[in-house]
C-alpha cells in the first residue's frame, strides 16, 4: 500500500510536528482505551478514510457521514483487531463496510428523494456554461458515483488508494480474478459513460 515502510507511517499533526508512528504500539494503546492513541490513528488515516468515502459517495456531506461512521466503528471494534492482517487492510474493510451501509440506507430512501433532487438540480437557462465547467471538473466522480456499488468500491480502492488487485481482493474478501473482472466492467462502463458525456458536451458546445 502507499506506505513508507511496514508498520510505520509519518504524519504531520496540527502543530507542524512530524510524528513517527509505530502502528502496532499506537493500535495497542488505542485498544487499551488511550484517547491520545485514537487521535493519532485518526490523524494518520483521516484523509484516506475521507477520500474513499468522498469518491465512493460522490458528495462531501455523505463522505463526512461515512468517515464519521468508520471512525466510530474503529473505536468500538479496535479491540477485535488481532493483527492477522495489516491495520490498513482492517481499516479499509471498515471504510468499505461503512460505504456499503451508507449505500443501503440511501437506497431505502430512493427513488423519491433522488427525483426531488433532480428537479432541484435542473439547470437554469444561462447556467449552461457553469454546468459544463462543473461537468469538466466533476464528471469523473459523477460517473464513478453511478457505477454499481461492487464496481465503484473497486474503482475507489484502485484509483484513490492505489491498491493492487491483490490488496483489493484482501480488503473485499474476494479473489483477485473477481477484482479484475469488476474493474474491467467498471472500465467499460466508465468509458461508455464518459464518452457519452464528452459527446453531449461537444454537441452542446457546437450549438
Amino acid at each position: 500500500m502507499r506506505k513508507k515502510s511496514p508498520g510505520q507511517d509519518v504524519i504531520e499533526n496540527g502543530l507542524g510536528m512530524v510524528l513517527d508512528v509505530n502502528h502496532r504500539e499506537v493500535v495497542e494503546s488505542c485498544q487499551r482505551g488511550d484517547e491520545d492513541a485514537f487521535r493519532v490513528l485518526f490523524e494518520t488515516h483521516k484523509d484516506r478514510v475521507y477520500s474513499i468515502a468522498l469518491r465512493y459517495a460522490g458528495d462531501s456531506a455523505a463522505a463526512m457521514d461515512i468517515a464519521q461512521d468508520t471512525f466510530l466503528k474503529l473505536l468500538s471494534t479496535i479491540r477485535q483487531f488481532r493483527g492477522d492482517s495489516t491495520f490498513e487492510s482492517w481499516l479499509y474493510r471498515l471504510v468499505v463496510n461503512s460505504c456499503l451501509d451508507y449505500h443501503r440506507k440511501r437506497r431505502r430512501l430512493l427513488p423519491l428523494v433522488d427525483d426531488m433532487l433532480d428537479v432541484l438540480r435542473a439547470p437554469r437557462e444561462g447556467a449552461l456554461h457553469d454546468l459544463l465547467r462543473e461537468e469538466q471538473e466533476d464528471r469523473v466522480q459523477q460517473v464513478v458515483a453511478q457505477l454499481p456499488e461492487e464496481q465503484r468500491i473497486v474503482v475507489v480502492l484502485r484509483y484513490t488508494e492505489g491498491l493492487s488487485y491483490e490488496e483489493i481482493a484482501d480488503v473485499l474478501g474476494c479473489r483477485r480474478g473477481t477484482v479484475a473482472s469488476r474493474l474491467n466492467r467498471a472500465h467499460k462502463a466508465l468509458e461508455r459513460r464518459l464518452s457519452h458525456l464528452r459527446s453531449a458536451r461537444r454537441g452542446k458546445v457546437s450549438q
Partner: protein
Amino acid sequence: MKKDYESDLSRHLRPVQAPDELWDRLQQSKVSLVKPRAGAGISWRWTAAAIATAAVVAGITLWMNRELTTEELAVSALSRTSERMDFLSADLAEIRSWMKTGTGLDLPLRGRPAPSVQLMGAKKLTHNGVSTVEIAYRVGDSDARLVISKAPPDGDGRHTFKKSGSHHGANFQSWTMRGQMYTIASSGEAKVGCMLCHNTGAPRMPALN
C-alpha cells in the same frame, strides 16, 4: 485507451484532505471517547473482588452479631468455662434464691442434685432483650449449662419440649414450663444435664414438637 482512463481516473479520484470538522463531529457523537484508563479491566476485577470480600465479611459479621437462639446461647456458654460467674456457689438452693432475687426467674426443684453434679455458679445476662440466667455445672466429666429465661405461659405446668439436637459438638435440649424457657447444653449427652434437678435421671421425654 485503458491506460488513458486509468491515468484520468487516478487524477480525478485522487485523495483529498479530510475537513477539520470531522474530528469535531466525532467528539460530538455520543460514543464514549473517554479514556477507560490502562488496566481498567484489572481495576474492575479488583473492585468486584473487594465487593465480594466486603459482602462475605458483612455476612459473617451479621451472622456473628445476629440474635442467637437460646440453644446456641447455651452451647456457646459451654466454651466460656473460664468466664467469671456473677454468683459463685456449689449450692443449688443458694443459686435459686440469688436468681429469684435478681431476675424473678425461678428454678423449680424436685429434690437435691445427683451426687455427680458439681455446681460452679450462675450468671445473669440479657438475651434477645429478655432477662436470662445461666447456671454452670459439671456432671461427671461433662460440662453442662442450664439457661433459664422468661417465656409465654403455656401447657399445664409440665415440660413442653421444644428442641433437641447438637450444635458445634455439644448436645442440647429445650423446653418450656410455667412461663419459663429452659435449655440444657452438655458436652456429653444432653440428658446428663437433667441431673441438676432430677437426681434419678432425665424425665421421660415425649415426642418433640
